[in-house]
């Protein structure tokens, strides 16, 4: 079975052979027995640990070459080592989503016969940021180099950085205004960008001529190539120690072991069955400058997921019933969907043992053709795929967590990740030069609650498990804005027995520029794109943007008047409006407006996580601490949680336990008095459904889901005992 040292087959044939063996045996590359592991498990484990150390070390070295605060501060990078066929053997920490997207990139080159032309030779460097070949979005630029041993291809080393500027229609990396591929920015489509370990000068010139801030991209290329060469040389040294045959066998056994470990962990941590959940995403752009009217400017997407866990431990995720792709930047390719699966598994199940592509092989994604998860048109934009990916994989986290709760592993249950809207910017820098940048402090949202504790405050995003918001001073070096506030947003975690982690809000004074374009992406409107669990509420998600144009802040400062450093807790009148003069602006959804200039003020909120459990069970003492420290307001404590607070002698809030017990009993009574049987509600609501008495965007959502999915149509029709098609698609064939 393992008799494939330095295969004589051409790479493409070898890849197809490997896929055939997997199909026939159910095991990676036909490896039905872990011979080397059984012979010497210690050597087996030690070798994998070495490979992982090569990856971690190469990434850390590369971060010090990079000029980008995204890579240096926030760690937006990952590296990995692959088999000749492009399957990940070992990986570093970081943005692990790309371990599998890079795998797709390598396989794409092999299947497209790169061996013939442009040829795969020692010292070559290949790059890609085309999501239909293998990445998530245009700023995720990946480089791979082949690893040769005595003339034979024995593997690949790969690295990905998230670029802060991609040269698209709007500045920054996540090109929010892209409505089709041609406005997303600079594409590098599985291109040979270097030979003999050197990046081609003409490629660098292309980058320099097509990006607003080429220093980030170009130095990141150098960082990635350095890390790949570092890993390549380490692997070559290892092969000289253990022998080529052993390497070729053990590298594949690692992956099969990873696959088996994932199945075993599913059997250990969950319960077989069908799990279901959904989330939504709203997009509001009507009247905003720059949007072409290629589709509806305002729309609502549903993202239903059905997950099946079979008794052999396989996890299948099915997205049937979701929405079609659209003329916006949030579509995703199967590569991106795979990446989302990989990074989620890595955090929740595949966190011990041999972390590699094997885990992904123990799962299956069903991505309906024509939907945003698998567009049937490769011209669509995917520049901000995460906008839909994050809510979708947040659902996956909740579905898995339902399994953990059922199995008794309550400490693993987690209400899931949320979108963390990003700011993109460009124009004239504080140094008077052109610039462009994505502000990556969004890499520190609030996490969903756990089943045994509150979520993490300002410390988690799904796409980078090492979440970090970066230092204010470093960001200020890179943009013409200075911070006048960065603070916790009270009540931004979803309410529950355990609340979701809180988010933060930043406020900036625009400084030393006459032209600053500010845009935001991954910013859902009008709906929750997250959820609570087991009785917990979703976190608020649709905070609007506030800005003050032509502010009098310099005058206020000169007079020693109080400023405003955050929007405050009055939803109707912000602290900016209360304290600062100027033209106040309130923008719903993505922030896309005319340029700002010095003296303007801009604020941006990130998202908190969903809550877990019934609010009436929340610990009053913990809540008093939350109020004291600005995570909850007094108003929420009494109104939402039923917790009565009083002040101690020094004016600090303390829980009044007796009054709390009394209030909660009253609230429970009130609940029961207010609630009606679900059957009554269904009977009453059916009339509204029959008349399709919904907002146009809601009706459109139903019509689109019905058009694409017979299962959604049946489920909808069965639930309401109506004919969904005739309601939402009158005139359509039955």
């Amino acid at each position, binding site marked *: 079975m393992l008799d494939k040292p330095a295969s004589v087959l051409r790479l493409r044939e070898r890849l197809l052979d490997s896929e055939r063996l997997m199909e026939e045996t159910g095991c990676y590359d036909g490896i039905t027995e872990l011979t080397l592991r059984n012979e010497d498990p210690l050597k087996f484990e030690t070798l994998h640990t070495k490979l992982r150390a090569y990856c971690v070390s190469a990434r850390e070295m590369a971060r010090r070459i990079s000029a980008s605060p995204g890579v240096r501060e926030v760690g937006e990078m990952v590296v990995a080592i692959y088999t000749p066929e492009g399957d990940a053997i070992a990986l570093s920490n970081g943005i692990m989503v790309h371990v599998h997207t890079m795998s797709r990139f390598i396989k794409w080159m092999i299947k497209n016969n790169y061996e013939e032309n442009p040829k795969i030779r020692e010292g070559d460097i290949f790059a890609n940021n085309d999501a239909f070949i293998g990445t998530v979005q245009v700023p995720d630029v990946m480089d791979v180099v082949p690893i040769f041993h005595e003339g034979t291809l024995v593997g690949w080393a790969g690295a990905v950085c998230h670029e802060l500027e991609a040269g698209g229609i709007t500045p920054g990396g996540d090109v929010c205004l892209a409505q089709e591929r041609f406005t997303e920015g600079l594409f590098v489509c599985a291109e040979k960008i270097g030979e003999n370990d050197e990046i081609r000068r003409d490629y660098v010139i292309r980058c320099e001529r097509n990006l607003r801030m080429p220093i980030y991209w170009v130095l990141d290329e150098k960082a990635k190539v350095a890390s790949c060469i570092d890993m390549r040389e380490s692997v070559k040294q290892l092969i000289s120690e253990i022998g080529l045959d052993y390497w070729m066998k053990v590298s594949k056994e690692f992956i099969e072991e990873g696959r088996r470990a994932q199945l075993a962990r599913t059997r250990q941590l969950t319960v077989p069955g069908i799990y279901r959940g959904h989330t939504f995403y709203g997009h509001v752009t009507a009247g905003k400058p720059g949007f072409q009217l290629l589709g509806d400017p305002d729309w609502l997407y549903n993202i239903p997921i059905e997950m099946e866990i079979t008794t052999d431990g396989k996890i299948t995720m099915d997205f049937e019933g979701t929405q079609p792709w659209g003329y916006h930047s949030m579509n995703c390719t199967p590569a991106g969907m795979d990446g989302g699966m990989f990074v989620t598994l890595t955090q929740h199940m595949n966190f011990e043992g041999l972390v590699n592509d094997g885990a992904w092989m123990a799962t299956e994604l069903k991505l309906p053709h024509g939907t945003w998860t698998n567009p049937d048109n490769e011209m669509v934009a995917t520049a901000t795929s995460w906008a839909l990916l994050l809510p979708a994989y947040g659902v996956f986290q909740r579905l898995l967590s339902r399994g953990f709760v059922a199995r008794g*592993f309550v400490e693993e249950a987690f209400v899931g990740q949320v979108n963390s809207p990003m700011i993109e910017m460009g124009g004239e820098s504080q140094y008077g030069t052109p610039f462009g940048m994505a502000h990556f402090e969004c890499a520190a949202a609030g996490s969903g609650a756990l089943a045994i504790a509150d979520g993490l405050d300002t410390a988690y995003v799904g796409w980078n498990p090492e979440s970090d918001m970066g230092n204010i001073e470093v960001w200020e070096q890179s943009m013409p804005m200075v911070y006048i506030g960065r603070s916790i947003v009270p009540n931004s975690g979803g309410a529950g027995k355990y609340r979701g982690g809180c988010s933060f809000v930043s406020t900036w004074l625009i400084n030393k520029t006459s032209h600053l374009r500010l845009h935001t992406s991954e910013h859902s409107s009008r709906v929750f794109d997250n959820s609570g669990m087991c009785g917990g*509420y979703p976190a608020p998600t649709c905070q609007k943007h506030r800005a003050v144009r032509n502010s009098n802040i310099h005058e206020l400062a000169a007079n020693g008047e109080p400023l405003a450093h955050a929007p405050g807790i009055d*939803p109707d009148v912000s602290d900016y409006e209360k304290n600062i003069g100027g033209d106040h602006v309130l923008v719903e959804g993505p922030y896309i407006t005319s340029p700002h200039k010095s003296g303007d003020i801009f604020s941006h909120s990130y998202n908190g996580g969903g809550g877990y459990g019934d609010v009436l069970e929340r610990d009053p003492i913990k809540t008093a601490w939350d109020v004291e420290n600005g995570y909850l307001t007094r108003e929420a404590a009494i109104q939402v949680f039923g917790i009565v607070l009083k002040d101690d002698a020094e004016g600090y809030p303390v829980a009044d336990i007796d009054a709390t017990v009394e209030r909660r009993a009253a609230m429970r009574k009130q609940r029961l008095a207010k609630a009606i049987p679900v059957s009554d509600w269904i009977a009453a609501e059916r009339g509204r*459904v029959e008349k399709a008495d*919904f907002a146009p965007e809601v009706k459109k959502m139903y019509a689109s889901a019905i058009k694409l999915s017979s299962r959604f149509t049946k489920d909808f029709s069965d639930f309401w005992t109506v004919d969904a098609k005739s309601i939402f698609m009158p005139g359509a064939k039955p």
Partner: protein
Amino acid sequence: MTSYSKEVLGDLAAGKLPWPQTRRIMSAYKDDDRFFKMVAVYQDRVAWADPILLPVSDHLFICQSGDERITRCECGHSFGDYRKNWKLKAAIIVRNTEEALREIYPNSDIPDPQWMEIREFICPECGTMHEVEAAAPGYPIVHDFEPDLEGFYREWLGKPL
């Protein structure tokens, strides 16, 4: 093999275990005897005698009740056959006005009730909130979980029901 006492697991489930100890449990290899011990913890917590077969939410359990397997609230209220969606037998409060949403989100921007509503599924007997759905108006109520109970016991636990 890793193993914890019922008392430790009881404290873990109740969120009362000190964080350093919780953290160690999170990081350690998982305890293979967890399921039945945790079921015993829950069994002690409920006032009724029907054997718990599977916890499905914070206060909801599938249990053996005579010849039937039902979903039961911790208070004892039965939501009927475990294969059916328990939510259909629950009581519901729907928040689909600005005023009703504002009660839960006093200081934040709130969703547009034309686009999204909150549905609270409540035990009609004790008033415990078992689940909250955030959905577009008209969206069918989701059946969260249909466990393969037979397969779980037979093939994974090695103990037929």
